[in-house]
């Protein structure tokens, strides 16, 4: 077996080890590579900048722990910016795991007394039923979530006063990693009611969401951890996402490199005469 044949059949665990090293290194020693902003992030940011103190925003948390590393930093960055602007936030979720993320975000502000529960912020909990639930909530918010996560009546909360359907929120943001998510919000609520819809998505879902952005149904889109990093820098508070950008760059280089080496090995071993391969 020649060198290139061996390279073709390299043990995958060597690649795995390289990937760990390459991604972990910049976590310990950041390189600080520059970053540019994508259009969809700028549009997202502009929509949020237009909001005034006292406006109300609905945040739909449609993700689970498995994908949280790519989308949760977005939720953190955007919520932080909204709270700084004095905007009130209602959290809801159509994924079982969603409500826990809202708790994580709200808790520090509630503990410090910066926000008052039921007035500045509310966690409407998880509503089962996927697409049907999104539709039903979109058309009748309080009726579909009569109690919050802790079993308190939502109808009497100051933050929910005057909210009939989702049009009564100034902006609706869906943070999402799959289905039900963007497509359901667009098809079941944005289409019929014409709400102001922004989406923060894991990167995987971005290509599938692009047609909705092109068609104007989604007004702004944050794309994965990089979207979160861009948003952090735009709103002036660099956090965990910005710190991860170097690791992403090196990880990309490794994968591009392995595609190149894999191809070189493929062509070199094809050139050599074969006797022991089919």
């Amino acid at each position, binding site marked *: 077996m020649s060198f290139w044949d061996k390279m073709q059949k390299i043990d995958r665990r060597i690649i795995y080890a390289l990937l760990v090293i390459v991604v972990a290194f910049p976590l310990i020693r950041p390189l600080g590579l520059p970053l540019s902003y994508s259009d969809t992030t700028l549009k997202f940011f502009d929509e949020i900048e237009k909001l005034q103190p006292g406006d109300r925003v609905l945040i739909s948390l449609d993700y689970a*722990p498995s994908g949280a590393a790519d989308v949760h930093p977005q939720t953190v960055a955007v919520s932080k910016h909204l709270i700084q602007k004095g905007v009130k936030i209602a959290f809801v979720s159509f994924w079982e795991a969603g409500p826990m993320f809202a708790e994580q975000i709200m808790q520090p502000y509630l503990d410090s007394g910066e926000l008052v529960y039921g007035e500045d912020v509310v966690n409407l909990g998880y509503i089962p039923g996927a697409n049907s639930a999104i539709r039903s909530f979109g*058309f009748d918010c309080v009726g579909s979530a009569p109690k919050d996560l802790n079993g308190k009546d939502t109808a009497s909360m100051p933050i929910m006063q005057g909210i009939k359907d989702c049009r009564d929120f100034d902006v609706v943001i869906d943070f999402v990693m799959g289905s039900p998510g963007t497509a359901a919000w667009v098809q079941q609520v944005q289409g019929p009611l014409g709400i102001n819809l922004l989406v923060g998505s894991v990167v995987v879902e*971005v*290509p599938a969401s692009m047609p909705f952005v092109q068609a104007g149904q989604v007004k702004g889109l944050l794309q994965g951890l990089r979207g979160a990093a861009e948003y952090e820098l735009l709103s002036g508070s660099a956090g965990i996402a910005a710190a991860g950008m170097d690791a992403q760059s090196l990880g990309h280089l490794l994968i591009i490199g392995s595609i190149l080496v894999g191809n070189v090995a493929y062509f070199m071993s094809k050139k050599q005469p074969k006797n022991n391969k089919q």
Partner: protein
Amino acid sequence: MRKEIPIALSFLAGIIMLIDSFTPGNFAPRVELSKWLIIMSAFMVGIASVNLVRIHGANVISRRKGWFNSFSLLVMLVAFTYVGVMKYSYPEVETWKVLFQNFYDYIMSPPAAVMYAIIAFYVSSASYRAFKARSVEATVLLVAAVVVMLGKAPVGELIWSKFPVISSWLLNVANTTGQRGIMIGAAIGGFVTSLRVLLGLERGHLGGV
């Protein structure tokens, strides 16, 4: 009757949804039905657990190979459910709340996060093994993938300033075109399948029980 009633119910539910979509204001039966759907879906959650308890309970009782794993599964299931029920029943007791959050943060989330992380490893080994310029088609796929990667990572901009431009054209124009073609076709396919469900022609989900 065992077949006709479900088909009739299915048709009725679908028509209520459709009428609501095409008439102004809220169609009252739809508002009610939506709440019913939420309640029924909540009951469905338990079906999966009944399955698990049957399978793993049997493993433990007859001491099959790997019964200890099945036992651990059942212990986790019961413990998590108990803590959750206590948390909702006594929202003022801090212990249950903290315990529930800890179960979630330290037992349920970590394996999920690692499974997702493993994808990164698999993507790298799959790119090494499979992304070969074997044919024109494969080469097209490969080049598009590499250009987009270089356009996305900050380091690509340092290599050639045009990478982000080309990659955003690929994402916004070429990708949107391809996705749109698939989407329009799939919408027609999905329409026809939904129609068959509504008319009771597709009833795989009603059989087998």
